[in-house]
């Protein structure tokens, strides 16, 4: 990617290196947010980066939260035309807004099994040169639980199966979940397992001083086992502030803005 277009989040994710192989290939990314600060903008940025002209990625976007038109309008302002990408078979959209299990003869488990099979079938149906460049995105996991009528164990099984795809096909798996839903639970198994499986954890939180017009929140990025050009690896934590705009997101270190 052109270095001048990279921002702090790109660098924290290791996207400042060569675009081939895709730095997120085979990696699991978990985006966490809360009511006060939505982390959706991170997902949108990853969609844009994944579909950059210099990459070969195909996105399978599993949408429980919003219809296609919502993402289309947002990504257009970010300079990415999802309709064109959809037509070019680079952006495959699964509209799951109305999925409800049990329903229509499907049990909670059955519904998610069918969803996994649909994802697998889609990957297998891709041309040979595209199979190795798949990114699965799920927005968002808390709504998968609702669709599964609270069957968190089934949701975990589903996620484990999706996780297996990251090693079988070298896919990326990028999910969004709302951390504050689980923070009051005595045993928040789902979020703990998701955090354990994640190679990269991105957390969007408000500042301790609350929301402001020039700083919308802070991002903490934990990149477990980053691979540098020189082959070294290690865990890295990055923390910076952000301001979300229609056509971009500004990231900056605290106190660095004039």
């Amino acid at each position, binding site marked *: 990617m052109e270095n001048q277009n990279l921002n702090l989040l790109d660098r924290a994710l290791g996207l400042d290196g060569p675009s081939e192989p895709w730095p997120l290939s085979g990696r699991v990314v978990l985006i966490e947010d809360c*009511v006060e600060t939505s982390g959706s903008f991170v997902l949108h940025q990853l969609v844009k980066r994944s579909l950059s002209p210099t990459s070969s990625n195909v996105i399978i976007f599993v949408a429980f939260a*919003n219809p296609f038109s919502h993402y289309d309008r*947002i990504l257009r302002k970010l300079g990415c035309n999802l309709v064109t990408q959809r037509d070019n078979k680079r952006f495959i959209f699964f509209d799951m807004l109305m999925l409800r299990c049990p329903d229509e003869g499907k049990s909670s488990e059955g519904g998610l099994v069918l969803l996994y099979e649909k994802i697998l079938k889609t990957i297998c149906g891709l041309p040979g040169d595209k199979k190795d460049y798949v990114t699965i995105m799920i927005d968002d996991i808390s*709504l998968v639980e*609702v*669709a599964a009528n609270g069957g968190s164990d089934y949701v975990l099984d589903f996620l484990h199966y999706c996780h297996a795809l990251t090693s079988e096909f070298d896919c990326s798996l990028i999910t969004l979940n709302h951390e504050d*839903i689980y923070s009051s639970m005595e045993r928040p198994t789902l979020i703990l397992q998701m955090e354990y499986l994640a190679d990269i954890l991105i957390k969007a939180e408000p500042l301790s001083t609350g929301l402001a017009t020039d700083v919308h929140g802070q991002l903490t990025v934990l990149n477990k086992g980053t691979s540098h050009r020189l082959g070294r690896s290690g865990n890295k934590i990055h923390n910076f502030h952000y301001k*979300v705009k*229609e056509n971009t997101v500004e990231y900056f270190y605290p106190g660095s803005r004039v």
Partner: protein
Amino acid sequence: MATTKPRLSSFSRNLSAVSSSQTPGVKCGPNGTMFVSSGIADLDRSLVMVMEDAEAPHHMLLLRNFMSQGLVHGQPLLYASPSKDPRGFLGTLPSPASLKHDKSRDRESEQEKGLRIAWQYKKYMGENQPNFDSHRDNKQDYCNEFDLRKPLERHYFTRQRVNCVGIQDSKNLAALQEHCASFLAQHQRNDGSCALAGRIAIQSLCAPQCEHSNMDWEMLSFIKSLKGMVRSSNAVVVITFPPSLLSLSSTKRWQHMADTLLSVAAIPDEDKELAKLLSGYQDMVGLLNVHKVARLNTQVPFILEATTFSIKLQKRRFLVLECLNQAPVDGSSGSSYGTSGSCSGSSKAGTLDF
């Protein structure tokens, strides 16, 4: 909703008129106030949730205004309630405020041109609007002021326009979902057309007298389905619920589901500390907090200047929201105020732009 412009000196008053709106949704009001629409550019197709306060039924004030406004403008209404007689509630809906109640109304109406009405239903008013009501001789101007002491005329409650559903005795939410689905199907969005908007008001969704109140996942599933349906319709949904009856985790799930999230809170009577802190305290009946504002088709969060508003009943008849300034003050601005209510002139405080 009215917001007070920051002042540089305690002696400044009646700030010079600022041109109405460099900022969309903001207009100048009297006494230096700036009226801000709720900031919600387009509430169509969105889900508004109001967290109730067990100590005071202020959510009912919001609900009444919401329902009256829809009926007065000929918008079909679906109202669901845990009470035994939901239709009886219609008798408590307020009537549009009389034009005489505010002498400055004529002057304000000119300024209203710049105001982007929160519900955006003004665009539906016009020649094409079907006339449901043969009693009306004149076209109803867009109205967002209601007189709580004057009940809405009964001719607005025709069954063609208002569908009332009781949710207390239903074993689950399937029937309510069915009602909502058929109601919304009548107001499906058609690209390029502007079908008549509809309103759904669901009061106290998880009230304990309802059989479904302990079915956490069923309620979540219902809200998710409703949200999905309303996104492809020309309607808006308001749901009120008492969060104290849900687990913390469930409450957070409901909050995330909402496109716009509000909460109401009671104000204790005769609280001397609050009386010192807030001017106009004696007129306040409660507080309204805006936690989240609908952002459909955009990733940009809407940051309000103020998120807490006092709820007042002006002359005990008109619901008024006024911005509360946040303390502590920024010393660099020169402002000498701490938290204050609308010192800038609460006598003509803003109307509820809801």
